[in-house]
């Protein structure tokens, strides 16, 4: 008995589906394995972490490594430093970058947009030498504010770039109507354009938060003992405890937990925001 065209189609679709899920599995496996291994290391005693063959699933899970991280180093202080640096750099970037994005989009000032692109091309390290000299002259080394200020190098271009893309897609008519009704250019921005751009503002704020939080190099150069940001603190653990794998993995988790949580909460907006910001 030969299969009818309908069953043949169904078999064909079944094979296509299986191939699709296989491709998804192949793509996700390496991506998830690194996270799995990090979690696995953080939940095991060091005797299991250095065992051969490696122990994949912890037999007796323990939170000792996390306790160790918080006891051995002032993690809450470093967390607070990171919050201050990232929070202020993001906030100021929003206050300056959202209006700037609006102005550049409305005036179609593409030369200014190109300056932003150039700033993205510049290696982060090259900002550090002159700023280091400057901050030393001003006696600001040893506080968190030089770090926050240099993080503006990251956050301001991200916010402005995303906002340019967003404001360019907004229809002109609403603001024009407001202007005809006698609103000033600032009122049109504040009461008409800004509320419409709320999704863009959220994406810009969160992406700039994530990239500022993850940044290592500025903190590494400017931070003293008490002003370390989270990534710098974790890097320092590596140099002092290179064989304590459990605590190192636990510290890695503690650093990335806030950004991972944010990513999950707004993943859809991140995908849209990055696609728009990168492609335009």
């Amino acid at each position: 008995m030969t299969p009818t065209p309908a069953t043949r189609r169904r078999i064909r679709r079944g094979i296509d589906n299986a191939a699709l899920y296989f491709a998804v599995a192949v793509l996700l496996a390496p991506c998830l394995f690194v996270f799995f291994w990090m979690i696995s290391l953080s939940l095991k005693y060091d005797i299991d972490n250095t065992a051969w063959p490696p122990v994949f699933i912890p037999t007796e899970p323990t939170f000792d490594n996390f306790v160790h991280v918080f006891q051995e180093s002032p993690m809450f202080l470093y967390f607070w430093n990171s919050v201050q640096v990232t929070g202020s750099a993001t906030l100021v970037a929003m206050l300056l970058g959202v209006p700037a994005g609006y102005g550049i989009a409305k005036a179609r000032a593409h030369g200014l947009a190109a300056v932003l692109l150039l700033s993205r091309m510049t290696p982060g390290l090259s900002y550090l030498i002159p700023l280091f000299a400057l901050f030393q002259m001003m006696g600001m080394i040893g506080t968190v504010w030089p770090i926050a200020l240099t993080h503006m190098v990251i956050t301001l271009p991200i916010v402005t770039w995303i906002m340019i893309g967003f404001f360019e897609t907004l229809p002109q008519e609403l603001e024009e109507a407001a202007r005809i009704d006698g609103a000033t250019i600032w009122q049109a921005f504040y009461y008409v354009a800004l509320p419409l751009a709320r999704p863009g503002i959220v994406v810009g704020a969160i992406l700039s938060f994530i990239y500022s939080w993850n940044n290592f190099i500025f903190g590494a150069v400017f931070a003293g003992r008490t002003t370390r940001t989270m990534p710098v603190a974790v890097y320092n653990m590596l140099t002092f405890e290179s064989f304590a794998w459990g605590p190192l993995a636990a510290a890695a988790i503690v650093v990335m937990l806030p950004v991972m949580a944010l990513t999950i909460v707004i993943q859809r907006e991140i995908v849209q925001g990055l696609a728009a910001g990168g492609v335009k």
Partner: protein
Amino acid sequence: MAGADITAGVKGQGSADRRLRPYLGFIWPALVVCSAVIIFPWLFTVWMSFNDWHIGSARAWVGIENYSKLATDRRFLESIGHTIYFTVLAVFLPLVLGTFAATVFHKKFRGRGFFRTLFIMPMMATPVAVSLVWTMMFHPQLGVLNYLLSLVGLPPSLWVFAPATVIPSLALVEVWLWTPFVMIIVLGGLASLPTEPYEAALIDGASQWQMFWKITYPLVLPFIVVAAIIRTIDALKAFETIWVISNGGPGTASETLNVYLYAQAFAYNQVGTASAVVVVFFAIIVVLSLVLLWARQKAQWS
């Protein structure tokens, strides 16, 4: 990106000024901060590159001596080679994998949103923390990667502990981190494609493979080139992964321009030399970006 728009902006200079004036109030606060944290360092760096300045001692004008010294500095020239090798791997592989991932995540299937979220997690993860985990995975005796190799019958590798394998190993971390970024950009491109060519091709009995190469690939090529430009810039600038995992070693086998620059500036305090490195480095990035932008124009015209 702004490439095509810049030329368009230059044409109507007079009308552009008139358009810009009312909006200057929106722009100048950001412009002032930009000048302070971005443009001031540029100018300072260029000026400093013509000086000999060792932090703590006197500064002296030396003209182009910093540059002529670099031209014969073997370690510097080798670091350019390392940077190019690393960049080629860290751009090409994410482009291939990311484009493939985008075609997969463009299809509709159950759980797509959830799997896509999992897939973009690496690019949001803190690079220093990720590098830390990879450092442990690369361990030649106890690392889990060598165990996985032994499972499929391959001999153990020295990974970042041998000069021959260190750059591909570091590029592997970079591929892991940034493939999702390419995926997102290309996914945005796929979403904007028309459906008619596919329907026509299906009627003509085209295979999936033919449809990809004949329809999808040419249409998303501009997006792939955008991803290539951003990825090239970022791979040239890669620092944290290399610094944390191999610290430029073993010896100077994985010392890229950025790592060499860091050593000059903050280990040897040679601000003049480091500034000259920055200028050369920046020139390389700009030239490569322009080449890629030109490639993008070509991709759009053909």
